[in-house]
């Protein structure tokens, strides 16, 4: 029996890492649920509404993208379009070179992970420093984020303290406050020395061109306050129709993602600094990134583009809790990643990640918590079907053709039911079906009683 890559990764995960992931996700999920259900009569109705808003937005991007471009330009920003990861990276580099800039401070943005911006800039002689504490730790460790909201959910403070010591940030000290203040001290100078600040955006309003950024550390504010040039890297699916929609979405985002009514900072950015404003970037560039999103929009899984990256589906997912994020070999792990990551690979790359949608018991917890009501299990199923149609091999998956033949011929089915009683007398390793042997590795198989119910039923009928 062959096993799926994510199952093997889970089996090989260090128990202390699994424990960190489990405890942290469980605590956030429970707080999230308490908060939503204590504060709203019907949070599920809010999730449905938010889903409708985002679905409308992604289905009407052809109208909203030009609208947002016009607004942003009117607000004084320059707008760029990047159809691929490479093009997005090149445009960032071009903007920096035009300014003669060599140092960038970065706020947390998943799309920059997706296009591997920091590595790209590094290769071109530009320092791109992560200023979100979690991302900073990922960067100094040459690691990858394992959660979309909490990049270092897989690390404990002792590991972090060792990394800080190694990087010359002070003698070993695993007190979280010390770690935070050391990072803050180190980064403070970096902000001042940087030429460009890079952020993402959680939402962009087509009505006003207003970009919304939610953070908890305030690092994105420093990125913008200390530098003269702001680059915002934004996936095209981040557009919402109206400012009004932000009330609903922000209320759901904070509660769903980090179990907060609102994050510590919610920034509304309208454009570069005006003549009356003393601080802020003089120059603002917005780069809208496609990188496979319009292909997703054309697919039958387009609902995944509603995602607002809160991470609630990761937190509640029993598979993510066992496997942690790196098992998904993708920037976007967990249930949302199991749908989005294979799709973002494009038509020819799909096969590489076609195993991700299999990594689910289809329990539906992700759908139940999703603030934009994405039917994730349905999308996982669609992708499983796509993999099957494309003939992509799936380790351990039992072939269904013979079963379907049997299950559509009642006589054969009934005969097999009774005949299979012979299994009760076979040793485990001689069971005729690999799936049954695999079952027995972890569990006992009950006694085969095929046909007994039908016998009982017909006797009961005769007796009546």
């Amino acid at each position, binding site marked *: 029996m062959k096993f799926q890559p994510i199952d093997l990764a889970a089996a090989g995960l260090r128990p202390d890492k699994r424990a960190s992931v489990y405890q942290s996700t469980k605590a956030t999920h429970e707080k999230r649920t308490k908060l939503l259900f204590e504060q709203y009569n019907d949070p599920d109705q809010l999730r449905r509404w938010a889903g409708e808003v985002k679905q409308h937005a992604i289905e009407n991007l052809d109208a909203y993208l030009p609208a947002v471009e016009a607004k942003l330009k009117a607000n004084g920003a320059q707008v760029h379009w990047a159809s691929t990861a490479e093009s997005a990276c090149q445009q960032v580099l071009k903007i920096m070179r035009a300014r003669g800039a060599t140092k960038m401070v970065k706020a947390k943005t998943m799309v920059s992970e997706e296009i591997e911006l920091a590595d790209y800039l590094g290769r071109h002689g530009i320092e791109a420093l992560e200023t979100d504490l979690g991302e900073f730790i990922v960067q100094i460790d040459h690691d990858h984020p394992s959660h979309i909201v909490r990049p270092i959910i897989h690390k404990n403070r002792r590991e972090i303290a060792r990394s800080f010591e190694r990087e010359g940030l002070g003698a070993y000290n695993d007190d979280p406050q010390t770690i935070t203040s050391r990072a803050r001290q180190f980064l403070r100078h970096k902000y001042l020395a940087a030429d460009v600040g890079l952020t993402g955006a959680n939402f962009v309003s087509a009505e006003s061109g207003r970009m919304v950024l939610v953070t908890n550390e305030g690092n994105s504010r420093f990125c913008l306050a200390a530098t003269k040039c702001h680059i915002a890297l934004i996936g095209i699916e981040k557009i919402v129709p109206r400012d009004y929609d932000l009330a609903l979405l922000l209320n759901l985002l904070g509660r769903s993602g980090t179990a907060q009514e609102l994050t510590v900072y919610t920034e509304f950015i309208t454009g570069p600094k005006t003549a009356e404003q003393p601080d802020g970037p003089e120059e603002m560039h917005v780069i809208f990134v496609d990188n496979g999103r319009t292909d997703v929009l054309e697919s039958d899984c387009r609902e995944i583009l509603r995602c607002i990256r809160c991470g609630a589906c990761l937190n509640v997912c029993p598979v993510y809790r066992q496997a942690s994020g790196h098992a998904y070999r993708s920037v976007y792990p967990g249930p949302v990643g199991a749908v989005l990551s294979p799709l973002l690979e494009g038509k020819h790359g799909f096969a590489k990640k076609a195993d991700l949608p299999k990594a689910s*018991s289809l329990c*539906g917890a992700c759908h*139940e918590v999703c603030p934009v009501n994405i039917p994730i299990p349905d999308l996982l199923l669609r992708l499983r079907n796509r993999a099957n149609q494309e003939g992509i091999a799936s380790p351990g998956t039992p072939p269904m053709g013979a079963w379907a033949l*049997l299950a559509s011929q009642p006589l054969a089915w009934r005969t097999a039911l009774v005949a299979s009683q012979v299994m009760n007398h076979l040793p485990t390793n001689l069971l005729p079906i690999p799936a049954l042997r695999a079952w027995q590795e972890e*569990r006992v198989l*009950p006694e085969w009683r095929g046909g007994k119910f039908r016998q009982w039923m017909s006797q009961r009928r005769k007796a009546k």
Partner: protein
Amino acid sequence: MLNQGRTPITGQRVQLMATCLCDAFYDDVAAATVEVLEHLGQEVIFPEGQTCCGQPAFNGGDWDASRKVVRHTVRTFAGDLPVIVPSGSCAAMLSHGAALEFEKEKDLGEIVALGRRTWELADFIVNGLGVKAWPGRYDATVAFHRSCHSRGTGSGEAATALLESIAGVTLRPFGEGEQCCGFGGTFAVTFPHISAAMGDLKLEHIRAVQPDVLVSADMSCLMHLGGLATKEGQPIKTLHLAQVLRDALKKSGAA
């Protein structure tokens, strides 16, 4: 709700979909379902041609194979009688999953129609027939595992309400009740490590409340949890909801 717009119950005849698991392993669960339905005054028809709801291939991604089985199921359960199934999972397959894989098929209408008259057992008793309390007696502390396929349906609450109403039953809620047991169909054999780890966590929560019996409305979850527990040398007693309902009747002599 996943199972919205269902045909209201007016008659006293139903078709039983016994499920392939009961057909192969759990004959007593199917028999208990029959006895429970008959106690409620329903005449139970068992279409002999039935096999499986089609879910294994649907979840496995082989929708051609699954559709073949679903079409067979639609033919087998022809007519307009309610179809009662002692499994939230098979019920969800017919009320939701099948519609998904038939989205582009000409016979979608027939599939949706079958879904509308398909009921998970507890849902049928409480929300279909309006029965709110169960007679008889069953002396036990019970841990009820709400199977995942009853999310978004009335089944979980219906089952809990029935169990709570039985004299002698003490329900013991346990931690992380909303989490999956780890069965997941073919997931159990393609992701055996994760599946078993999820099951162990569930067993840990259940054992912590020391129930006399673990009850569920889905034998698939119980087959997995019971099988794990036995393999680990710490067997637990598992019963389907239908068995508890039937046994409660027997104790009161009402059966």
